[in-house]
């Protein structure tokens, strides 16, 4: 005992630089805003919290970048391993994705909730993107089911918790692939912004639409496009309708900010952020677009931009800023000030809504019988608008809208369009409807 008391504490040598995307998210942190996303899995049986806690405790050490705390350096922020107790599973709340102050929750940037049959994981975006979060959620879920007696093999999004973390999982993959010879300029044009009545603090309105993947696929096929292209077009259509309903004196282009998972194009095992944004848009000043024209336009845009060459150029542009020697030596508080200013003045005005598609999820065969569906929530939007996130599992496709405004016009136009195309939609919501 005595020896232990006087034993030297091990010198902390492990820490992680924030990746290229993660640098921006902590800068935008406000008292009433954090870049937090939520991934949920619905099981077929109600969740047992004590067993879930055991699963979390066993799983988290396998994900060192998620079991970490964010710290301020003189020039950049960084992540350092967090050995404080937690994170503790807690009963779910009505207002998901609430702000996540860095010093609260024992400095964990993770929250794990349970409610009835649902396990939800909320993570700060500076730890990783949705794909990284999905690895964590599925590994926790697999471990939870194992604790209950199920036999689940590793594979896909389920990692082996007894294995040492692969260095490739912790890397900043942007740096490896930002090597194009040219830096294409970033698009920056003032776009239409949804105006709405702000909800009081601590409110996040969620509207989830549950659809059949096959039905959506068949409709998208009729338009000769993919599901993502079709749903993008529907959201652009909804935003155009919303703009028209406001009878504006001056119309503005509507544009969607859509993250693209770069792992599809650049092989990487990273569990951290590895996404870049593309901006499909429609400009009503050029004339009235029919829905078919919007679909075609989005299809052409995606075909043109989503390829290895363009995406490499895009990440090179982003990485160039971070690599610039003059920018590197500027103290953090000045960087924070400039980035926040740039984000609120330019970046936030650059898109009318956000849309992300996690795509069709694959889970290990042995896990399928235990799962009902997956839900996703892109988190609180930075300004008064609505964010849309899509995820599908087996034949269930979930579209989750999250907004902190009272009006649900965009959601209404969106789902009504799907109904008009013959897709059956079931709606769930946490909005006060009494």
């Amino acid at each position, binding site marked *: 005992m005595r020896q232990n008391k006087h034993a030297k504490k091990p010198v902390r040598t492990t820490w992680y630089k924030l990746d290229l995307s993660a640098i921006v998210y902590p800068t935008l942190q406000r008292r009433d805003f954090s870049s937090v996303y939520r991934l949920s899995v619905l099981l077929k049986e109600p969740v047992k919290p004590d067993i879930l806690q055991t699963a979390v405790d066993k799983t988290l050490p396998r994900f060192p970048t998620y079991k970490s705390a964010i710290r301020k350096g003189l020039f950049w922020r960084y992540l350092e391993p967090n050995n404080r107790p937690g994170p503790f599973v807690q009963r779910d709340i009505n207002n998901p994705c609430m702000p996540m102050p860095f010093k609260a929750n024992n400095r964990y940037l993770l929250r794990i909730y349970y409610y009835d049959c649902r396990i939800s994981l909320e993570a700060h975006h500076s730890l990783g993107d949705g794909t990284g979060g999905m690895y964590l959620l599925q590994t926790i879920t697999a471990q939870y089911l194992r604790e209950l007696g199920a036999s689940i093999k590793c594979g896909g999004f389920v990692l082996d918790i007894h294995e040492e973390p692969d260095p490739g999982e912790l890397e900043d993959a942007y740096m490896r692939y930002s090597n194009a010879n040219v830096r294409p300029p970033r698009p920056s044009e003032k776009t239409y912004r949804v105006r709405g009545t702000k909800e009081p603090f601590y409110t996040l309105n969620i509207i989830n639409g549950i659809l059949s993947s096959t039905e959506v696929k068949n409709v998208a096929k009729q338009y000769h496009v993919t599901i993502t292209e079709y749903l993008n077009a529907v959201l652009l259509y909804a935003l155009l309708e919303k703009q028209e309903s406001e009878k504006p004196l001056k119309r503005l282009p509507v544009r969607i900010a859509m993250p693209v998972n770069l792992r599809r194009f650049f092989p990487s095992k990273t569990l951290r952020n590895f996404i870049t944004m593309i901006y499909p848009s429609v400009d009503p000043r050029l004339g009235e677009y029919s829905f078919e024209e919007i679909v075609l336009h989005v299809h052409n845009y995606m075909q043109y931009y989503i390829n290895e060459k363009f995406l490499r150029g895009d990440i090179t542009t982003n990485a160039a800023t971070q690599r610039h020697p003059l920018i590197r030596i500027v103290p953090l508080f000045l960087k924070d000030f400039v980035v926040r200013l740039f984000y609120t003045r330019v970046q936030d005005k650059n898109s009318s809504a956000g849309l992300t598609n996690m795509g069709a999820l694959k889970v290990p065969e042995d896990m399928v019988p235990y799962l009902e569906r997956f839900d996703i929530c892109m988190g609180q939007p930075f300004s008064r608008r609505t964010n849309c996130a899509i995820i599908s599992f087996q034949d269930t496709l979930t579209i989750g809208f999250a907004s902190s405004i009272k009006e649900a016009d965009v*959601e209404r136009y969106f789902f*009504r369009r799907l109904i008009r195309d013959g897709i059956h939609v079931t709606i769930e919501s946490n909005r006060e409807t009494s």
Partner: protein
Amino acid sequence: MSYCVHCGVELDPSLKKCPLCSTPVLDPNNIPYFEASSPYPSQKGKVEPVRRKDAAIFVSILLLTISITCGLLNRLVFSRNLWSLLVIGFCLVIWVICIPFIFYRKLSPYLAVLLDGLSISFYLYLISRLTGSADWLYYLGLPIVALFTLLLEAFMLLIMKINHSFFSVTLYIFSLIPLSCIGIELLCRNFLESPLRITWSAIVLTVCVVFIIAIVTIILLPRVREEARRRLHF
């Protein structure tokens, strides 16, 4: 199973209205349908307050170290007079000012300002003890600190209880500036044993009265108020 008659979407059994268009779900044949439990919990979450203990400990230790080292330096090396009392008093004032920000955030702002006033008064008392002169303290120092404490308390009361819009706050500031100037001038004259009348503070008062009348006019005329708000927004 209910459908919204306007949107055509199927609604979760827990919903009483369509979340998209607020049309109520009406099913005359099945009234107790609303008993279904919601897929979302009703309890709202709140952000855990941030612990500022580390900052509090750091500031206290820093100020305490400065006080002790200066005290020792005064006692052992430069011991001609009690100059270290000035440094210790200053550290105390800083510590008291820091209380509502890092030690106890729930402290009533009125009490915080009162404590600030008391600590500054105590600091002035230390100076008077050190310099061996007390006149200025009783006739000038303490009355001015009391005056400013009182005006600050009044300012906070007005902001918190009456109105804190941009124009109201400007009005309060322009009302309190001449009061403080008149107070300072009268106290100075009293201390110097000059006749009690106002000179330079009368100019400040006149300028402020012009501003006050202009602001009151703006506040009372809604059209002008909106116009001014638009033009002055920042």
